[in-house]
């Protein structure tokens, strides 16, 4: 029985280490995007943009994320470009950004650099806060950030 308890502890340690490694890898991956403009040719530069990613089978994309993006667009008007892209038509972009689920949203600044990647549903207020932090930065430009979804 002691032997089996030790195996469980070992499994728990391996999971924790693997999770930390994945988080470190994702952070590094996002930092590598700091000097790239993956949306060039898709989203016109000149103002911040919020790009949603959806799949046809993603019910939450239609029922929650799309209305949230519509609300964001209505609230911020011309200050921001809001687009929704189908995952199936931009597979390289999805892989490049490390998007693991749908819905997902990406916030890019006026030069086209990725600043935030939200995995899972992001409400209009959260996206507006992220856009405002780009439009009115409190301090110098930081590395891109990501937020994982629950579930």
């Amino acid at each position, binding site marked *: 029985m002691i032997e*089996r308890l030790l195996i469980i502890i070992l499994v728990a340690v391996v*999971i924790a280490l693997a999770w930390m490694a994945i988080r470190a890898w994702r952070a590094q991956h996002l930092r590598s995007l700091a000097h790239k403009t993956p949306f060039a040719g898709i989203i016109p530069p000149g103002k911040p943009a919020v790009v949603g990613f959806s*799949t046809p089978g*993603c*019910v939450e994309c239609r*029922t929650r994320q799309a209305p949230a993006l*519509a609300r964001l667009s209505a609230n911020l008007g011309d200050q921001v*470009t809001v687009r929704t892209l189908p995952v199936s038509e931009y597979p390289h972009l999805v892989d490049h950004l490390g998007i693991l689920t*749908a819905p997902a949203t990406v916030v890019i600044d006026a030069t086209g650099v990725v600043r935030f990647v939200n995995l899972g549903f992001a409400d209009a207020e959260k996206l507006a806060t992220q856009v405002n932090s780009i439009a009115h930065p409190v301090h110098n430009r930081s590395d891109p950030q990501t937020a994982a979804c629950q579930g």
Partner: protein
Amino acid sequence: MSVNQNHATLPGFDRTALRVNQAAVIVLLLVAFIADLPWLAATTAIIMALGTISPSLALFQRLYRDVLRPAGLLRPDIHQEDAAPHRFAQGMGATVLILASLALFLGAPTVGWALALLVVALAAINLVFGFCVGCFIFFQIQRLVHSR
């Protein structure tokens, strides 16, 4: 702007029920492993499979809805989200656990318990870190289906 404005609504999805289900699976499988009880692992597999087939047969979620929530021991955490990825993840877990049970009863305990601990690990990752591996696979399958 190209925003899809379909405002259809989803039924509420209670994440507390999901967490109770994950916690129950983890506890039962750990007890089964520590006490070397293959029948308990098989029973958990059957419960998970039935819960995947019909939510009304999901015993752990019924325990939450019929006992723990009415008693005020746990509070609902309702979100408007699709239950399909979570059901897919549960079905995946049930399938692996059925294979584990078959291995245990057919005389391959190492394989059987390794598969059972894999299910424990995936449930724990979802419960503790909030990352659903089954939902991620569901997303990748959707990508593959719609890219054809």
